[in-house]
């Protein structure tokens, strides 16, 4: 895990930053925590980023009368927009967009089935099961005009 300089409150703020950046009302907190922990792990190998993270999270908490984690969703999004383009937020977003949407629990929530090779692909598991449109032709007569 990451630096001892990061407090439990910093981590909570970071989890909420990831949620504010990619808000899904149907997601539980677990995927956001895992995405935040991946950011912390990355900061643990990069002192410059860790410094930016410590300062950036502190500043987010100081933007309103209450800490970032206690803001309602709209206010949190507005506060975060104020940091858009900063190296701190860019690094969090670049990491979280990968981790969050590679998370198996998120795949389930979005309906994505992912790796299929060990199950024989989708050949017998619905690659062509869309039934709300007619079956189209798969080849055409004649040549494509020049």
């Amino acid at each position, binding site marked *: 895990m990451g630096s001892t300089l990061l407090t439990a409150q910093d981590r909570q703020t970071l989890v909420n930053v990831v949620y504010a950046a990619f808000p899904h009302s149907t997601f539980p907190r677990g995927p956001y925590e895992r995405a935040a922990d991946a950011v912390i792990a990355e900061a643990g190998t990069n002192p410059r980023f860790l410094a930016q993270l410590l300062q950036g999270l502190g500043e987010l908490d100081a933007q309103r009368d209450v800490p970032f984690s206690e803001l309602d969703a709209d206010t949190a999004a507005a506060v975060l927009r104020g940091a858009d383009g900063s190296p701190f937020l860019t690094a969090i977003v670049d990491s979280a967009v*990968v981790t969050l949407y590679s998370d198996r629990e998120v795949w389930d929530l979005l309906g994505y089935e992912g790796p299929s090779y060990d199950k024989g692909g989708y050949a017998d598991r619905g690659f062509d099961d869309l039934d709300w449109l007619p079956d189209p032709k798969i080849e055409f007569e004649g040549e494509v005009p020049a």
Partner: protein
Amino acid sequence: MTRFEYDDSDVVVVVGSGAGGGTVANELCQRGFKTVVLEAGPHLTGPDYHQDEWPAFAQMAWSDARTTSGSWQVAKDFPNLPAWLVKAVGGTTTHWAGACPRFKPHEFTARSTYGDVEGASLLDWPIALGELEPYYDKAEIKMGVTHRHGRPPLPANNNYKVFANGAEKLGYRYYSTGPYATNAEPYDGRPATLQDGFNFQGDKHGSKWSTLVAELPKAEKTGNLDLRPESHVAQILHDASGKATGVLYVDRNGTLRRQRAAVVVVAGNSIETPRLLLLSGSAQHPDGLANSSGQVGRNYMRHTTGTVWGQFDKPVRMWRGETMAGVIADESRLDTDRGFVGGYYMETISLGPAFLAKFIAPGRWGSHISDLLDGYRNTAGMWIVGEDMPRADNRVTLSGDTVDQHGLPVANVHFDDHPNDVAMRRHGQRQGAAVYKAVGAQNTIETPPYPSTHNLGTARMSQRPGDGVVNRFGRAHDVPNLFIADGSVFTTGAAANPTLTIVALATRQAEYIATELTKTLA
């Protein structure tokens, strides 16, 4: 495993093992020529590949440093990743989707057909479609392209059903599930597709044609192939008479080796090939090897591209099945009344949630992104790919101060969209959205270009030596035993996905090299 001596000056050295290099190598091995293939990347095979987008990318992509400049959006979104290419045995054929349109006759005469387009460096190819047709046939048979030479079409998958129904409603006529170089039924020792949905990630099953599973194993069986992975070529050597004598390369242990050669064939893709020529400058070739024309690295093309996503109120599940087994060809026609020259294809595409979230609006975040991901299950996707205009100043050069792990200056890729590219992209995205709206899309999303997968033109073929780098057989105008076998040689880009044409040209080139070498060695 065949191994030739470093000092064996009878071998043909092929730099790169992708569509061009892998094909030339196999064709030469079949004819009995000793061939050394130097591949910068590792030898990955089916079991190594990940069906998970980011680990697969980390495993396969050419992620050595590169730099960018110019006004294209890729330079802003992906400043150190101008291109999405593979560094592994099989090259980018392990990542390519498989779409196999041929060039049209007029696409070999772009300058004559389109006229003098301002700000473009158009040139006619020194060959005509008729000369390439027999080699297109050979390439399609070699690759097992569907819809051709008796190979059956792939069935319609879910993404295609949406795409094709939209096309029909919009009045398009020329839509189909191919031509596509993945087996619908077993062919040439390779199995039928499992519709597993990961052909961009190496295709574990080996149903898709790639040099990894087709050309290189066949070459290996002849006993004439010496395949050396993790071998990064640093310089092409030449003698006082101006002939290439071999190459210097860094092997897997970091040791610099010299391999002598009778012929050198370069096929490192349209970014690495000009980089290598520029790195091979000498007193005799002060501006880079084979660059007396000053054309090496210029006229870089990347195809006009863009993506359109349609979201529906019912499931699509686009990730199931072959990724690009769907083509609408109607807009590939010659028709300058649309406000641009050149044509484009629409082709199905699918990304998983991880790549979709990253590429749908690079660098963006917020509820407009997460809302789109919430609709993932109900999303259909298509890619627009069309002819872009070559420009003299769109070019690959050596970066001033960035070097790679071997201390070699990296490639800088400079690109400015031509107004024709912008007009074509706008038209394509509008038509793509119309396809999805015709079958009830609730919303459509336009995604800007990805890092380039079709890299072309930086060592172009020309009739006159002053206009390009290689002649009609891909032989360097300046160096008689130096050949280029990849998309760098494209004089213009046409609308078609380039791999089929690279394979056809490489097949023809190998035949020529064999004839010439037989004379020399006899």
